[in-house]
């Protein structure tokens, strides 16, 4: 009653005014909330934290993989000694033959023995070289396998890293952004409703407008 006295006019105007002011207050609050959510959304979108890929620094170690059998040396030192020993033995035997006046056939036999000895040495070197080649080939094969395994490890790490970054981004920032966006949509609806309520309250009052200032609008 006191409120009607304050405003004046017919009592429905005072009631309508307070209804309209409540709707205006609600609309203003909704507009503020909308602005707040928009500010929050902007910050969330702008300052998306860079998700660190824990696999980012994984490097291929394939360049460090070498074939330890690639350059194996042949043990020719012992073979050379053996040849030298054979030559010395042959020289000594020839000296003995000369001193004792032994036949030329004995010398020939000695030379043949020396030749056989040298052939044996050559065969030993050949055998070593063959063994080394086999080892180098096996080493090469092993190295290729190791390099492939390392490359596969890198590819897996890269894929896992990408998956991690995607997953982390999706579950963190996007969740917050989506939620805030949802709230923003909801508050826009509330704002529209408050404005509609305001219009409704004002329309109700317009019926009483003619009473303000007597018959002003009728004149």
């Amino acid at each position, binding site marked *: 009653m006191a409120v009607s006295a*304050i405003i*004046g*006019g017919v009592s429905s105007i005072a009631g309508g005014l*307070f209804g309209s*002011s*409540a709707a205006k207050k609600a609309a203003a609050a909704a507009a503020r909330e909308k602005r707040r959510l928009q500010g929050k959304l902007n910050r969330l979108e702008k300052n998306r934290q860079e998700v660190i890929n824990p696999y980012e620094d994984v490097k291929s170690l394939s360049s460090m993989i070498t074939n330890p059998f690639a350059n194996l040396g042949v043990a020719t030192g012992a073979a050379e000694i053996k040849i030298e020993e054979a030559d010395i033995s042959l020289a000594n035997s020839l000296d003995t033959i000369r001193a004792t006046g032994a036949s030329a056939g004995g010398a020939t036999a000695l030379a043949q023995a020396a030749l056989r000895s040298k052939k044996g040495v050559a065969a030993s070197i050949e055998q070593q070289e063959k063994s080394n080649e086999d080892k180098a080939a096996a080493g090469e094969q092993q190295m290729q396998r190791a390099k492939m395994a390392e490359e596969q490890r890198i590819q897996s790490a890269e894929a896992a890293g990408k998956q991690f970054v995607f997953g982390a981004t999706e579950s963190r920032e996007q969740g917050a952004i989506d939620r805030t966006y949802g709230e923003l949509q909801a508050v826009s609806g509330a704002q529209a409703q408050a404005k509609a309520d305001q219009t409704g309250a004002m329309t109700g009052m*317009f019926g009483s407008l003619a009473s303000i200032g007597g018959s002003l609008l009728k004149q």
Partner: protein
Amino acid sequence: MEKNLNKNLFLQQFNESDAIAYNKDFTSGISDYNFQLLDNAYRNTGRVYAKLKLAIDSNRCQEETCAYELAEIKHLQEAPQLSLDFLSSLIAELSVTGDPNFDLNNDSKYTIANSIISAKPGFSKSDGYNVYLDLLQDGAQQIVFIGPAFEEPLVINNTALNALAESNTSLVAPTPDINKDMLRLLTEVGIFSPDMVGENGELTAGAKITQEYVIMNPDGTPDYEIIDIGNGKGRNILKYDLDKIEKKVTPFINAEVAGLLSSEQDAVAAWNVYISKGTSVEEDDQMAQNANAGDTSWSYTEDLPLMQDKKVLFEKKYKEYFMNNYLKQFTTNQLPTVQADAAVFDLAEAKKAKAQKFIDDNNL
């Protein structure tokens, strides 16, 4: 500034208390609220309207074009709608002074005006107050409040009020509901699992921070802190990686602050009412008695727009307020989730066992 704050505080306490009901002078006197704003404003308009209309109809206008008369008639025809719109906007603005978390640093003139317009005891015509609605020559309207509590009349023009509303500003700064905001923020900072959030959008009663933030032993078991509960008994409580929690929640708090700062007067109100003093929620509930921020408050007339250093300070203190008043309860005195570890035990035995484990683990 302090005078204004004290005046607002007095008005708030006066309006909220029932003291006036026991004042015999008041109860025996007349309380006349018959301000009749609209009746008084439009009392002579009918005659003015008729004169203008007559001047036009009888070719007796000031000028040949009757421009003045036509403009005046247009103003008068639009005036009632403008008045209703103006009054409803003004009532909406002034009603903020009655909000429970109203910032007392707002201009106390608006609190007095609201007391008049809402017919509060002690603010009637009989108490020396009055309100006028004036229809101005240019079509604008103004409302004038006068009375003992005003040092000078409070004049508000409808065009100024409309301009403020259009730019999303207000005469009286409403205080954001920080409690509601922070309860919601708790669910958004990413340290609680989604199933801990109830249908009302807030954390459920038994909500706990996810296991990811619990400090664990190398063997994967939680590294409990033992607390003394008296009588030689103890309990395990969970220890949390507070640095990790802080790193996780900070971007979300900063986004919340950015949202608040999108309306700086709201941020000032939040600062004055809640944030500035670093008070507890309980203390804030009694803010009428505490006179809000007092000497650390920011002024609406002097501190707006907010300088960068104030924005940084606001962000820092907002975070502290959130951490101390809302998050801390989830990182302190939290019982283990493993049933067996949550039992009460003999303190001496437990301490001995823990020491022995340390010796064993470190081969001492």
